[in-house]
């Protein structure tokens, strides 16, 4: 497959875009990365994701695939000769999918809302919820990894990708609130896993630097404050 046949429409700060990039890297797929302009949204984005108009969108031989976790599963299905991303056992797949859904539906939205919390009480409550989620995930890591380095075992897999993509924004939240969320004392296995994940060959070049993300977050917050009527 030539490089131009596989395109990924994305944005560098997006954890969801990162998921698609990691999956493609695991399979050693050459692809063209197209940084979405937004404001206004590009015609390519509007045409290839008319339902949600969001990144990431994977375009393989002119066919668009949307929604990050669906893209990851698609990449695993298409490039089946490369290392497996989904676990091989149906039960293990169901567990990995369960935690990915938990992350997307519950944990990450809570993490995001910490930044926009109104008042110290609300912030504290949300931070506590993020911490409780991490405790659940620490427990899950212990059960699922069976003593190995990653949720996927010896190699990173679906759940590593689904969760690891949020580490940048987790660090941003730590930086902005001054609160350590991923605690080596409370969640030692997760803390070690996070380091290993970020150092992994398929991840390190696509994980944005925390300082850049903090700058980006501050810019977003300033924009929101400016556009919110008092």
């Amino acid at each position, binding site marked *: 497959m030539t490089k131009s046949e596989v395109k990924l429409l994305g944005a560098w700060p997006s954890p969801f875009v990162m998921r698609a990039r990691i999956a493609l890297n695991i399979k050693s797929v050459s692809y063209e990365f197209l940084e979405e302009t937004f404001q206004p949204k590009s015609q390519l984005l509007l045409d290839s994701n008319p*339902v949600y108009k969001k990144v990431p969108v994977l375009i*393989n031989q002119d*066919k668009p*695939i*949307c*929604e990050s976790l*669906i*893209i990851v*599963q*698609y990449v695993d*299905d*298409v490039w089946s000769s490369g290392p497996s991303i989904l676990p091989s056992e*149906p*039960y293990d*797949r*169901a*567990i990995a*999918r*369960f935690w990915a*859904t*938990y992350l997307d539906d519950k944990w990450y939205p809570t993490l995001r809302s910490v930044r926009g919390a109104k008042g110290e009480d609300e912030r504290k409550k949300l931070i506590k919820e993020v911490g409780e989620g991490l405790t*659940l995930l620490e427990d899950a890591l212990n059960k699922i990894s069976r003593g190995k380095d990653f949720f996927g075992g010896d190699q990173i897999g679906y759940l590593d990708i689904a969760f690891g993509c949020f580490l940048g924004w987790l660090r941003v939240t730590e930086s902005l609130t001054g609160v350590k969320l991923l605690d080596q004392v409370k969640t030692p296995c997760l803390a070690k896993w996070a380091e290993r994940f970020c150092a992994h060959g398929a991840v390190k070049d696509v994980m944005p630097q925390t300082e850049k993300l903090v700058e980006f977050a501050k810019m977003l917050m300033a924009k929101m404050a400016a556009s919110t009527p008092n």
Partner: protein
Amino acid sequence: MADEVVLLDFWPSPFGMRVRIALAEKGIHYEGREEDLSNKSPLLLKMNPVNKQIPVLIHNGRPISESLIIVQYIDEVWSNNKSPLLPSDPYQRANARFWADYIDKKIYSTGRLVWGTTGEVQEKAKKELRESFRVLEKELAEKTYFGGDMFGLVDVALIPFYSWFYTLETTANFSITEEFPRLVSWAKRCMQRDSVSNSVPDQYKIYDFLLDLKNKMHSIQ
């Protein structure tokens, strides 16, 4: 090899219905256990400690939660079968997952607001729900089922909400049959399958249940 399959369920739950349909499509024998959601059983709390919700499939003692995850699990485990719920082509699979996920995002919570509220909140929800039905009707187009000729994941994801149609129409005063004729024909086609008609309760029974629930919700406020 005897498989032990238990489903923790609640008869009016559209999510429970999805799993019932998938199990029936595959001809799997299982024990259905009705949960009282106001008094959740120790088994439910043990098997789904994170969300404490039904449906939960317990296969040989191991729990699987989240309806669409359960349906895919069923399809993967009981795969040497004439009725695959997901296509084999990767792009078609991605497409099926996309639309099942769309239904998960758009129908349940908006539908609840349509039958559960009044006034401006209801009007806004009704507008959103109509838009979602429009998108789905367009995606269905002239096909027999969402995936084409074969009944599959997207059909399983959506058909339980057919049991809400009478309630939605009556509480929000609009006609789904008139506005979305293809969707309604598709729903009636699905209901002709035994797996579906045995899993999806009658619309009037659901209406009584939802209205009762709505009254309870309002009396709490």
